[in-house]
Every structure is written in C-alpha cells, then in structure tokens.
C-alpha cells in the first residue's frame, strides 16, 4: 500500500528531475511575479508590508495553476496513465502519490522561497512565520483541488481555460483564508482561526480530492 505510494512519488520525482526545466519555470514565475511588485510600488516599506500577503498568495496560486496542466497530461499521451488505471492498487492512492510529487516539485519550492520574498516586502519575522505555515497548509490543498480539475479536463478541447474556470472558484476560499491568516497576524489579531480553517480545507481536500480525481480519470479514459 505505502510501497505503491512511494513508487508513484519516486517515479514522478525522477521524471521531474529529468525535466528540471518545468520545476524551475514555476518557481521562476512565482519569484518574478512577486518581485515585480516592489519594483512597481517603489520602496515605501509600509505599503509593501500591507500588500505582501495578498501578492504572495495570488502569485502562489497562479504558479501552481500553471503547473497543473502537466499533472496528468503527459501520462495520458504516452499511455502510462492507462497502465496506472490498471494497477491493482486503489487508484485514489496512486493519484495521491502523483499529487504529492507534484506538490513536492511545485509547492515546496514556493514555500521555501516565500520567506525571502517576505523579507523583500519588509514583513516581520512573525508575519513570515505565519505566511510559511499558511503556504504549507494551503499549497497542498491547491494541488489536490487542482488535480480534480486537471483530471476532469484531460484531453478535452480548450482544456487549459476550463481548468482555470473549474478550479479557480474552489481556490477562492484557500486564498481568502491564506492571505487572511497573514494579514490577521500582521495586524495583531491571532491567525489561529484562519489557519485552522485552512487546515480544515486541507483535510477535506485530502479526504475527497484523490477520490474525486480518480473517478474523473476513469471517466476521462473511458
């Protein structure tokens, strides 16, 4: 059971390393989108500090969404997805493995880079801490929710936009609570309420998304 989870993850991680470009593109993108702001806004640290949580979170969501297209598409084209569906393991487990690998190569770099960007925006250490926690809770949820959208639109005409259309509304709560947590902590209110809601979303997503994505894959490959 766990062996197969590990196997899928390893596979996708090796593939990501062989195509490092894709990983870096996401990260690159995130950094550039975020870095543009201070350039534009000018160095008034007060303003920067105010907009920081929103900017980082929006950039993170955009960057993860960009990477979604690759989650199942390549496997679909070369037939390996079909074989994955024929594995005697529960498909939702395999999907979970793929999503975890996807998160490891797109979400984790964002999380790691975020503190640097936070500093650039003059955020306090505490604010950065909360930003980090909110991203750690939020980015896997984004990947999980995105997986459902990606699976549903596999091989469909106009897949790219459709994914955004299907998935963005579901991202809104994550964005609201994620950016909300940082803002609350920066403005002195506690971030706990927001963070626990974010945690709840993650748990919900962990329970339902792999299952829904698996069902969607079965439909898409019919």
């Amino acid at each position, binding site marked *: 059971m766990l062996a197969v989870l590990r196997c899928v993850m390893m596979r996708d991680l090796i593939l990501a390393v062989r195509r490092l470009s894709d990983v870096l593109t996401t990260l690159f993108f995130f950094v550039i989108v975020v870095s543009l702001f201070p350039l534009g806004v000018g160095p008034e640290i007060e303003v920067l500090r105010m907009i920081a949580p929103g900017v980082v979170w929006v950039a993170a969501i955009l960057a993860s969404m960009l990477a979604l297209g690759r989650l199942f598409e390549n496997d679909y084209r*070369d*037939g*390996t997805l079909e*074989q994955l569906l*024929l*594995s*005697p393991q529960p498909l939702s487990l395999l999907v979970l493995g793929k999503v975890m690998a996807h998160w490891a190569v797109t979400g984790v770099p964002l999380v790691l880079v975020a503190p640097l960007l936070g500093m650039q925006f003059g955020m306090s250490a505490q604010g950065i801490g909360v930003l980090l926690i909110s991203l750690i809770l939020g980015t896997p949820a984004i990947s999980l929710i995105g997986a459902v959208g990606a699976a549903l639109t596999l091989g469909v005409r106009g897949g790219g936009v459709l994914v955004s259309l299907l998935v963005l509304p579901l991202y809104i709560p994550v964005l609201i609570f994620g950016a909300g947590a940082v803002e609350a902590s920066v403005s002195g209110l506690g971030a706990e309420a927001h963070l626990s809601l974010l945690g709840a979303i993650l748990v919900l997503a962990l329970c339902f998304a792999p299952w829904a994505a698996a069902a969607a894959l079965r439909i898409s490959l019919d």
Partner: protein
Amino acid sequence: MLEAINLAAVRGDRRLFAGVGFSLQGGDLLYVQGANGSGKTTLLRMLCGLVIPEEGKILWSQEDIRSEREAYLQSLVYLGHLCALKDDLTGLENLRITEALAGEEISEPRAMAALQGVGLNGYEDLPVRVLSQGQRRRVALARLALTQAPLWILDEPFTALDKASVGSLKTRLEDHLEDGGMVILTTHQEIEIKAAVIKQVALAEY
C-alpha cells in the same frame, strides 16, 4: 474464468458492436478480429475495465469485474497501441516502475534479464526516447517475462517487431498458454499460435 455476456459499445453516435459474448478458460486463446475501426481496441479496453459497457457485463471467476476490481487487475496484463513508456526514463527504469505499479517489485538483475530476454542487451541504460520503434515495443513486452498474471490482453503486440522478435513472442505466448494462462489478442498479421483451444470473436462493421 473470464466470461463476457452480451457486450455492446457506443462511441459518439456510432454503435460499434453489440451482443458480443464469449467465455475463456485457462489455456484458451481468443482472437479478436475485425477491420480497422471495428472496435477491437474498444472491446479489449472494456475487458480491462477501462471502458464501461453500454450493455452487458464481464465476469471473472463468476464475479463482476467492476465489483472485484482489484483482484481482477492483479491477474491481468494489458498492452495497448501505445507503449506506455516514459521517454525520459531508461528501459530498465521503465520496466521496474511499471512492474512495481502492477504490484510486483522486481530486482534490478531480474529486470536486466527480462530486457536481455527481448534482445535489448546494451540498451538497458539508454533513455527510451532514442530507441527504435521496435526496441520500444520490446521494452513494453519485457513485462510478459516478469508477470505472474494469468490473463494477457494484447492489442496488436506484433506491431513493429522484427521476425526474430515475432518468433520469440509467439513462443512466449505458447508457453503461457501451455502453463494454463489465457491470451486475448488482436492482430492483422497472420501468425499462427498453437493453443489447446482457439476461439474467435469477429467484430463486423455494424
């Protein structure tokens, strides 16, 4: 063991086939025949549980394959038109990962041996991207040497293979059938495979 009852398939507006039924025991070979586009691939994918039948059902040891999915998949190998290989991985990696996902961890020497068995000595460590068409197919076929599954569903397995490989695949199929395995096959080539019982399903243009 495998029983198909009154299967029908619809694609887009077209009804590809209807009323297809057969039953298969250990040692049986089933040829699925039909012109291009008659629905052979669709039927094979249906037998794997990938396509949901419009009508009818498929039983494995008396159980519907959709209710006993995991046990069924454990006893099944499917090779389709696509080789299901990752271009960026080597043949060895591809083989080991595919098998691991199918539930069997294969040690490196065993995988090596399987690749050498299909005549890929010296190509194990090349990324599959650079292999020739037939070599890619052979990497995919190397699974057959490793699997324990009794039911093999092969969609035109002889494509792109040279004569020597066709011969050795043929022998492999015959051995499997002799050992009590089952083979479901489509092919447009005339290749005679010896088996105790040979069945045929012909899909006519509907």
